[in-house]
Every structure is written in C-alpha cells, then in structure tokens.
C-alpha cells in the first residue's frame, strides 16, 4: 500500500521540523544575548570615549596651568623637605627680633586617600609688644601654607618694671606626601 512509503518519511520530516524549530529558537536566543552584549559594550565604549575626551582636555588644562601649579607646589613642604623647612623656620624666628624658639614638632597622619598631611609646630618666645607682633606678622607672611591655629599673648612685668609679652603659638604647615 502507498501509505507505507509516507510513514518513515513523515516521521523523519516531523523530527526534522522539530530540529529546525529548536535551531531557530537557539539562533533567536543567541542573537538576543549577543544584542544585549553589544549594546552594553557600546555603552561602555561611549562612556570610555567621553572619559578619554575629558582626560585629554584635563591634560591640556594641566599643561597650560603648569606654571601656576608649580607656584602652588612651592607653597607646600615636600615630605622629605621637612628638616630643611624646620631650619628655614628657625632662621625666620631668630630674624624676627623676639626671643622665640621652636618647641615641639609633629607630623599628623594623612586622611585616608589624601596626599596632604599637617606639620604641627609650637613656638614660644618673649619680647616687647612690637617684637611679639613682628613675630606673629612674620609667621603669617611666610610664603608657605602656614596657618596659626592658636595664639596666646600674655603680658608680664620684669624685675625692672618693664612690660614684656610672652607669645606662644600653635602652627600648622601643609606637607605633601611622597607620590608613588
């Protein structure tokens, strides 16, 4: 009978159709997955391109401002330049005219992620009012980033009845940590 020739061919066609359906679904699924990947990568590339443009602009700005940056850098004390700064500071104290001396010196730990730390200095001295104020003005006019955190001026009379002023000041100077 004729139907006997249809049966195996029909079965084969059903299996083939099912296989083709599976293949089509697989291709669609793979395409969807690839499309997502391509879209995500495209977004990342756009972001990276925008960032690169920003970095190029930033680099140009940094190059253009290198003189100002250099000027700013000179106001910070490099970490390995602390002893030299202390020498210079003591020289400034002795040139102020008052009997001033450097007391304690300490270096704060930098804040997390920061490249700047504070050098703490304590200064004390005595002199006339003018000498005391000259000392304070001298400290405040230093070219480095020195800040007086506290200042105390106390008057007293010496044995000869002359009025003198005791000065004590806590100062803070910004120090640049070493760059890796």
């Amino acid at each position, binding site marked *: *009978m*004729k*139907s006997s020739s*249809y*049966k195996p*061919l*029909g079965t084969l*066609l*059903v299996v*083939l*159709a099912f296989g*083709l*359906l599976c*293949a*089509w679904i697989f*291709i*669609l699924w*793979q*395409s969807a997955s*690839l*499309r997502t*990947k*391509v879209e995500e*990568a*495209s977004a*990342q*590339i756009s972001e*990276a391109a925008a960032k*690169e443009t920003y*970095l*190029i602009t*930033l*680099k140009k700005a*940094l190059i253009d401002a290198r003189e100002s*940056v250099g000027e*700013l*850098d000179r*106001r*910070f004390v490099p970490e390995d330049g602390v002893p030299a700064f202390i020498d210079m500071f003591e020289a400034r104290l002795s040139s102020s005219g008052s009997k001033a001396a450097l007391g304690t010196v300490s270096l704060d730990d930098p804040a997390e992620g*920061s*490249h*700047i730390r504070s050098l703490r200095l304590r200064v004390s001295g005595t002199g006339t009012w003018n000498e005391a*104020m000259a000392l*304070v*003005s001298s400290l*405040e006019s230093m070219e480095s*980033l*020195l*800040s*007086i*955190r*506290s*200042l*105390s*001026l*106390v*008057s007293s009379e010496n044995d000869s009845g002359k009025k003198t002023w005791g000065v004590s000041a806590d100062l803070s100077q*910004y120090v*640049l940590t070493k*760059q890796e």
Partner: protein
Amino acid sequence: MKTFLTEQYAKAVAREYRGRLVFVASALSCIAFLAAIAFALPTYFLLRAKADAISTPASYPDSLSNVESSAALLKEKISAAETVADEERMAAIVEKILVRAVDGISVTNISLRRDTGASAISLAGVADTREDLVAFQKSLESEPLFSKVVLPVSALAKGKDVHFSFSIDSDF
C-alpha cells in the same frame, strides 16, 4: 451521506489521510523554519562579528592614565591653599581688638583659637573705670568679625580698677 466503503477500508483511508496531512504539515513547517533560520542567520553572524570586535577591554594610553590622579591631587592642593588664604590673619585680629581699647583699658592677655566653624577669642585686662569697660564692650560688639561678645556681669561689680575677661565668638 451514504458510503459504500467497508469499515476497515474507511479506517485505512482515514489513516492514510492523516499520514499525508502530517507529512504535508511537516514539510511546510520544515520550509517555514528553514526560511526563518535563513532570515535569522545574517543578523546572528552580524551580531557575533560585532561582539567579537568590541570584546577587547577599553584601555587609555599611558599618557592619560595618570591625568585623573594628578587632577585629584591638584584639587586637594587648591582646597588646602584656599583654606589658608581665606583665613583672617591673627595679627590683623589683634590689631582690630586693640584699636578699640579706649584710654583707660589695659589688655594683659589675648588668646585666639582657630577651629573649623568655631573660632574663639579670650581677652583679659584691667579697666580704669566701669564706664571705660562698658565702652570697650560696646566697641567690640560693633566689630563685624565678632559674632558674640560676652562679659561676665560680675566684672561690673567694681567701679574702679576693674579686672575683666571677655569671651568672643568669631569666624576667622
């Protein structure tokens, strides 16, 4: 409708019909799925090629890799420099206090403490008279730099040779 076929032959014809129907449906399905695959494959290969092309991670040239950290450091330096530049000089503050010390006021002790948002001054001395002290207090209160000037009331008890101590809040 009347049929002349035997029951057994009728079943065989029906089975044959269903077999042919399945055969034709399967053949048409195969053609449809093959066509669908043929249409889907170019898109698939195109996407695959794109995905392969952009899978390399983006990296910056060496000349740019340090720019961001340099800019962050510069920002930190500028912020620190601005903090110091914006500070009122202590010598100037002392001058502002003493310029207001009228005749009859003798300042013996000045302390200034600079803190973020809460700087303070303490001032001690001797006034010849209570009126001189009150005038000095009013003069200090008129200084825009000082937000609050406090003189303990007990300092006004004496009329002459008045020892005083001011607490001044400021933002320097």
